[in-house]
């Protein structure tokens, strides 16, 4: 097993509710993700998976507990260090509005290198290669508005990987895609994560997408209720032959 890229220890995130009282959106969650491992974070809406992802992305500070990326405790970093960590160690894809609308596909990918001060000729070549790998070699100069949802999502994946981050976070990468495209996108994503040895975490409500992951973390009411790492169980889950609730019990 590869080194631990991401470590989550007893993370709790408490929100105040309107009209008084508090709720634990994330309730004492602990897990690890290794380099080269692709993990799905699943659960019904309101289960706390997006909150969890925000904490992993250093966009939200947990009320208590620790998140370590590459062994670095995020709670100990100030805001500007967190911004730096985000651009160096983390790759992102979002549900929608993923790409900068006024940059071409290749410019969007290279923007990550630009942020890290490493946009050079080698970077250009690498971004072109990566986009070609994702089947977009004829789309390098297209603006996001000129591409389909699936193509945009693949550009986002290239952007999330180009700067060799330790952790890649994907928020519902298939939300706006049809099934066929969704499978394609997630499969390529999984392959790249495995090949390049990144720690990938995908938040999804679509259990069929779990087909390509190594482990499924299931959340409900803020708690991590189930971890499925058996290949056969994951397959069964992805085929939809067992409802999540059944597995959970």
């Amino acid at each position, binding site marked *: 097993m590869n080194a631990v890229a991401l470590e989550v220890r007893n993370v709790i995130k408490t929100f105040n509710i309107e009209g008084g009282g508090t709720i634990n959106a994330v309730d004492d969650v602990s897990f690890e993700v290794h380099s080269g491992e692709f993990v799905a974070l699943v659960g019904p809406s309101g289960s706390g998976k*997006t*909150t969890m*992802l*925000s904490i992993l*992305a250093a*966009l*939200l500070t947990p009320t208590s507990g620790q998140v370590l990326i590459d062994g670095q405790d995020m709670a100990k970093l100030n805001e*500007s260090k967190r*911004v*730096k960590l*985000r*651009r*160096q160690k*983390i790759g*992102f894809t*979002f*549900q*929608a*509005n*993923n*790409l*900068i*609308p*006024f*940059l071409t596909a290749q*410019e969007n990918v290279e*923007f*990550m290198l*630009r*942020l*890290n*001060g490493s946009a050079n000729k080698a970077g250009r070549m690498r971004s072109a290669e990566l986009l070609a790998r994702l089947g977009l070699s004829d789309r390098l100069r297209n*603006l996001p508005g000129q591409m389909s949802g699936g193509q945009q999502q693949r550009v986002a994946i290239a*952007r999330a990987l180009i700067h060799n981050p330790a952790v890649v976070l994907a*928020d519902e990468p298939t939300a706006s895609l049809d099934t066929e495209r969704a499978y394609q996108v997630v499969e390529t994503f999984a392959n790249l994560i495995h090949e390049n040895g990144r720690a990938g975490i995908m938040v999804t409500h679509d259990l069929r997408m779990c087909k390509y992951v190594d482990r499924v973390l299931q959340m409900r009411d803020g708690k991590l209720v189930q971890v499925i790492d058996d290949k056969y169980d994951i397959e069964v889950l992805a085929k939809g032959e067992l409802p999540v609730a059944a597995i959970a019990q």
Partner: protein
Amino acid sequence: MRLMKTFFLAFYLAIKEIVRNKGRFLLVSLVIALITLLVLFIAALGEGLADGNRQYVASLDAELIVFLEKSDYSISSSRLDTNTIRAVRRVEGVADAGPIYTSTSEIVSLEEPLKISMLAAEPDRPGMPPLIEGRTFRGGAASEAVIDEGVALRSGIKVGDEIEIRSTQGTEDEFFYLKVVGLVGKQSYFFQPTIFVPPATWEQMRPQPAADLRDTTPYPNIIAVKLADPAQIELVKERLQVQVSNIEVTDIETTINNIPGYSAQQSTVQTQGAFTLLIGILVIGGFFQIQVLQKVPQIGVLKAIGSSNGAVGLAAVMQIIVVTAIGVAIGGGLTYLFSLGFPPTIPLTFDGPRSLLAVIALLLIGPLGGMVSIIYAVRIEPLKALKLG
């Protein structure tokens, strides 16, 4: 180093966005161009009107103006005794003093009679502007005149020409002939172009009631005083008031502000200019605010993937500066083109200090109007990228 990186990143974002959304940004630039056109015209009008009124007084080679006591610094109601001029010249610190006689008249030896200010001053004394062509008139009651460029421009009269002046004296219209011997720069006074004549000639020619015709002594309205040391302005003013009887003394600035209607007119024009600028600020502010509101998720993504607040804010500032500068440039060009087509009779002055001030103000309204949107952009949370919070 980090600052340079932020700068270049912001520049990259700002320029890429403008280039890829040319149409939208150009539209705002055009709005700014129109505001520029309006503001520059108002500024030119203000300058032109002011010039028409004060040009002669403002360009006097003097620091102090002597008025008749209790004349409230009004040139037309001030009329000084003839020996006042000698008394003023004797005061210590006064380098020179020249009497100025004002009146209005009409040149009738033209297809279209031209109303003019007829001023008298002594050659080579304060009050007589520097010649740019020809010579100055001889003393005494010589029938000679020096015209200003305003007269030349509107009438086509040249040095060497003879002009005919009509003047109402008592109940009769009297006609006088003058030879034009010299030309001075624009010396507009009381919205009219100017001719200069010797004081004795002026006394003969000026419109006056029948009762005044018997007295042939010219009485100056004011005296322009040039100081040996301009820094001693307060001291000499004090001395003049003590040593010379029946006078009040003030500086050029106050004299201009007391020209009838000058202050009222200028404050009107300035208020118009200020309000136009204010509208400009609101328009630009509104546009950039709406734009930023539309871009919230995009800015969220930029920040989530690791752009600093500084880079995002700076990019917004740069965009506003670029858009404003382009707009002002277009508006300035348009104004220049329009200005070529205006006849000299319309009081518009485009090359005055006020136009420069207006351009500076116009360049500032962009950043000023965009301030709210910039602050808003900087405050957007990267969490917006995740559709959470």
